[in-house]
């Protein structure tokens, strides 16, 4: 099967600082792939590069085989990629429903799989709070808005940047419970996580990054904890 998205020797820079050193990555349509790695490994930078938020050469990123590297973010979204960004990045001073509607406003006639109604069914609490400003919501509820907003972009590929970060275990379970339903809609997902157990359970394949490079990749069910520990921290003398 051809990849929905692939990267080829992807590099990224912040000024003189190189954050990614040639990432080769691929994901098939409908597949769920986890991307794990310690803080500062370059996971967010990788997602930002895909979204067109850091300058990259066209050939470094291919969507459906076509080079899209460096395209403007709104065009990436229009071609079927959405992101749940690190830190949620909701529009402050706007209500839950307004936040969600901004995504709908940008559809320009694209086929609608996800509707407001469907998001409210996925996360019933958001229906209750739809007219509240987002900053009055709890962290978990805000994360639901961010996920809902990304889904309303009708993505074929959704990038999730540490959606469990800072949330209580119960809330994390609640949010991860919707991942299978999103996958069932045919949406491919890249799940960036620091929680290795969570990442393995939710994905079919995983990549581990360390200091801007991929240090391990394989089927989530087949990779051993030891291999992950080594790839995660660098070397077998793992230091937490």
């Amino acid at each position, binding site marked *: 099967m051809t990849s929905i998205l692939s990267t080829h020797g992807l590099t990224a820079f912040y000024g003189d600082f190189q954050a990614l050193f040639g990432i080769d990555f691929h994901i098939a349509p409908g597949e769920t792939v986890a991307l794990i790695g310690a803080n500062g490994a370059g996971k967010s930078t990788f997602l930002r590069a895909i979204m067109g938020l850091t300058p990259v050469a066209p050939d470094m990123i291919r969507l459906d085989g076509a080079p899209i590297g460096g395209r403007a*973010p709104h065009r990436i979204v229009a071609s079927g990629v959405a992101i749940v960004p690190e830190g949620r*990045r909701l529009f402050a001073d*706007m209500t839950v429903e307004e936040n969600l509607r*901004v995504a709908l406003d*940008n559809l320009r006639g694209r086929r609608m799989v996800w509707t407001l109604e469907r998001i409210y069914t996925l996360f019933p609490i958001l229906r209750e709070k739809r007219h509240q400003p987002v900053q009055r919501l709890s962290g978990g509820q805000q994360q639901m808005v961010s996920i809902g907003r990304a889904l309303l972009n009708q993505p074929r590929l959704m990038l999730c940047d540490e959606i469990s970060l800072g949330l209580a275990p119960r809330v994390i379970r609640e949010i991860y419970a919707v991942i299978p339903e999103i996958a069932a809609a045919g949406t491919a997902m890249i799940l960036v996580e620091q929680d290795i157990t969570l990442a393995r359970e939710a994905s079919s394949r995983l990549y581990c990054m360390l200091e801007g490079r991929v240090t391990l990749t394989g089927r989530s069910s087949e990779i051993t904890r030891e291999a992950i520990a080594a790839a995660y921290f660098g070397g077998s003398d793992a230091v937490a």
Partner: protein
Amino acid sequence: MLWLDGLMQGVLLGGLYAQYALGMALMFGVMRIVNLTHGDLVVLLALIAISLSAQLGVGPWTVLVLLVPLAAAMGWVLQRSVLNRVVGEDPLPSLIATFGLSVALQNAMLQIWSADTRSLPGGGIEQISWQVGPLFVGVLPVIVLGAALVLTAGLAWLMARTRFGRALRASAADVEAAAMVGTNPRTVYALATALAVAILGFAAVFQGLRSTVAPADGAAQLIFAFEAVIIGGMGSVWGAFWGAMVLGISQSIGYRIDPGFGTLAGHIVFLIVLALRPQGIFGRK
């Protein structure tokens, strides 16, 4: 009675200042740009209005209908060709670019229209007034105030209730996040500036009718817009309106204390607000 008259004249003057201030509040609120050509654009549009009126032999309302779309187009081009290149976290590039543009605009206007003072003929409307008890209320200032109210309410409605308003507020809150949700910030910005300058089209016609314009007048208009926006609270639409009222009333009362004190009184109130409530009367921290 002198004070009551001063208050009323101040409110009416505030109507004109509100029209200067709305566009600035919009541009600052959405893009964090302080457009230093703001006053020059009012003057430029007023001079164009005066030339249109003379060339075509039409009245001020026809001029208004022609001028506003032209102003919108100018705003669009300004954003697309200049401001989109300098907008960003750092406010300095846009300040430098608009400062340079302001100087260039003033020189161009001097070339085309000379330094003469001109005004827009209103066909007599500028002289009509109503007598209300002991006060005389000019018809034109009342029209200006009414237009300011309609423009402010219309802009506030647009921001709060429409799809475009949502895009504006989303871009104002977090432009990168807006782009990640599929918004094209450059288009949103171009439309915002088009709208801001279109409102200046109204201000220009009324300025030309009420008093005179000359190519170098832009600086004063810029300052008044700026003061109104700061007094009201940066980036808020109704804040800009009320800030303009406070400024208009301060100037008008000051003028009645001493004719040389009017503008200064406005500056003093502005400075007091800045010292006591830097986020503006209606602004939040």
